[in-house]
């Protein structure tokens, strides 16, 4: 390090404004440079000397007088007050104008959303009608069912043989089916996994997640596979709080061993919109040695959660953590 740079760093170091690395280099330089050591002494001397011209608090009388003067000046702004209001209104108006493109985009998005939702509802209605027709036709003999256009989902291809005059039509059928079995049956499990993704019927999701969560709680076939993943997806994204609650309970045995599960539960503790789910997350979470994220999240929740009860419980859990660990 050269003396020019060292002397600049001496001034900055006196005020705690250099990095640790620069400080180390400076110390090395000072060991071998007499001139810079003298400079360091002089800088310390300056700081000591300047302390003889201290910052004084304004006297109470002066503070009171300053406040009185300001009060009067603010009170004597009749014309100014009007101007102030106008300028503030203008400023807010400019702010609104700046926000106009954002508002337009929001309106557009709201329109698209409403349109999409309307279309979705109409489609749903049509689908339900179609489904009810299919269900009504279930009991009919196959021959009759084949003739019934209600069971035909769509026509995929048509070819015509000109020589014989026959027409060949390829079509797909929608046929509702039922399967029965225990939860251990892989096919039933596969259907339950599909059931967790049913975006139309919350009841189906609820039942699917409940059954899978039970399997996990009982330690059956839940080792790092699709069931655990499905429960984590349900915990993070399901719109229904009851479904999320059941997914959370199903994941509880794996919080300690699986960091992905732990992250999902901590995320729930931080972000879930339902206080009951957040409360349950606190109850189920276990401290994990060597992982400070649990403690950090609990600190954050204890400080920032909207719900007073949750803040209190987090603080209580935090107090117990050292004993448990």
């Amino acid at each position, binding site marked *: 390090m050269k003396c020019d740079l060292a002397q*600049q760093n001496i*001034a*900055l170091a*006196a*005020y705690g*404004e250099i990095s640790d690395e620069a400080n180390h280099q400076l110390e090395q330089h000072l060991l071998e440079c007499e001139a810079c050591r003298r400079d360091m002494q*002089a*800088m310390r001397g*300056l*700081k000591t*000397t*300047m302390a*003889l*011209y*201290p*910052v*004084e*608090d*304004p006297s109470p009388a*002066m*503070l009171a*007088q*300053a*406040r009185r*003067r*300001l009060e009067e*000046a*603010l009170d004597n702004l009749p014309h*100014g007050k009007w101007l*102030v*209001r106008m*300028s*503030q*209104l*203008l*400023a*807010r108006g400019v*702010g609104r104008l700046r926000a106009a493109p954002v508002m337009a985009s929001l309106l557009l998005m709201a329109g698209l959303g409403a349109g999409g939702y309307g279309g979705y509802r109409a489609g749903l209605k049509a689908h339900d009608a179609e489904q009810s027709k299919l269900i009504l036709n279930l009991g009919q003999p196959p021959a009759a069912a084949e003739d019934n256009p209600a069971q035909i989902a769509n026509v995929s291809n048509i070819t015509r043989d000109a020589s014989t005059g026959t027409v060949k039509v390829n079509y797909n059928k929608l046929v509702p089916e039922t399967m029965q079995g225990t939860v251990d049956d892989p096919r039933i499990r596969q259907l339950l996994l599909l059931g967790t993704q049913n975006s139309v019927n919350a009841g189906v999701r609820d039942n699917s997640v409940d059954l899978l969560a039970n399997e996990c709680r009982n330690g059956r076939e839940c080792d790092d596979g699709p069931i655990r993943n499905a429960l984590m997806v349900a915990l993070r994204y399901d719109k229904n709080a009851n479904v999320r609650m059941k997914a959370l309970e199903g994941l509880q045995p794996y919080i300690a061993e699986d960091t992905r599960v732990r992250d999902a539960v901590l995320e729930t503790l931080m972000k879930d919109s339902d206080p009951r789910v957040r409360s349950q997350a606190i109850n189920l979470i276990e401290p994990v040695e060597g992982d400070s994220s649990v*403690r950090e999240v609990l*600190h954050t929740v*204890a*400080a*920032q959660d909207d719900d007073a009860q949750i803040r209190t419980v987090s*603080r209580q859990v*935090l*107090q117990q*953590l*050292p004993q448990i660990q």
Partner: protein
Amino acid sequence: MPADALRIPVPTTANAHPESRAIQSSQRMLTDVRDRTTETELIREAQQGSRAAFDLLVRQYDQAVLRLALHLTGSEQDAQDIHQEAFLKAYRYLGNFRFECSFYTWIYRIVTNLCLDQLRRRKSRREDPAVMIDASGEEMDLLSNVSDERAGANPDRELQRKILGQKIQAALETLTPRERMVFELKHYQGLKLRTIGEMLNTTEETAKNTLFRATRKLRAHLAEMR
């Protein structure tokens, strides 16, 4: 950082139990969050025209503003003028405050600009620098207010302190207004150079160079006077 400079720190001990430290830390976090929320609400109310909210904001900062202006200008009258003008400006332009920086930085930016103007005017008028003027226009000796609390303090030593104090004031007056401001905010107000850069609309690097120049000048002038 800036707003913390005005808050009363919660005392902690090095040997505190980790558990109690964690609780203190979360309590402090809670208090900070509450303070910030309260201040934000006050600012919003004041922006909507509430004079009471603005008065509460003034009360949070006016003592610090007055202390800075008094130390920089050395005149009670000038300090009160700066105090008044700063808060009138804040009242006038509060609608433009968009929470892009802390309110502390915003109000200090107004105050430092007014102080810089005052220091520049004084430079151009070449006023006597080493004398403090009180509100009634009388000269006053700032250092006479600094008592030596040690029992049996030596009168010669007191005299030396006063003389040295006047020399310090004279040395400070040799700085350019900007150097004086950076030195004041760093040495006496203890702000970070990054914050000082923000307040003075410049970079941290420039603030560092300005502080270095100020210390060199002060050392040179104080050495000459010895």
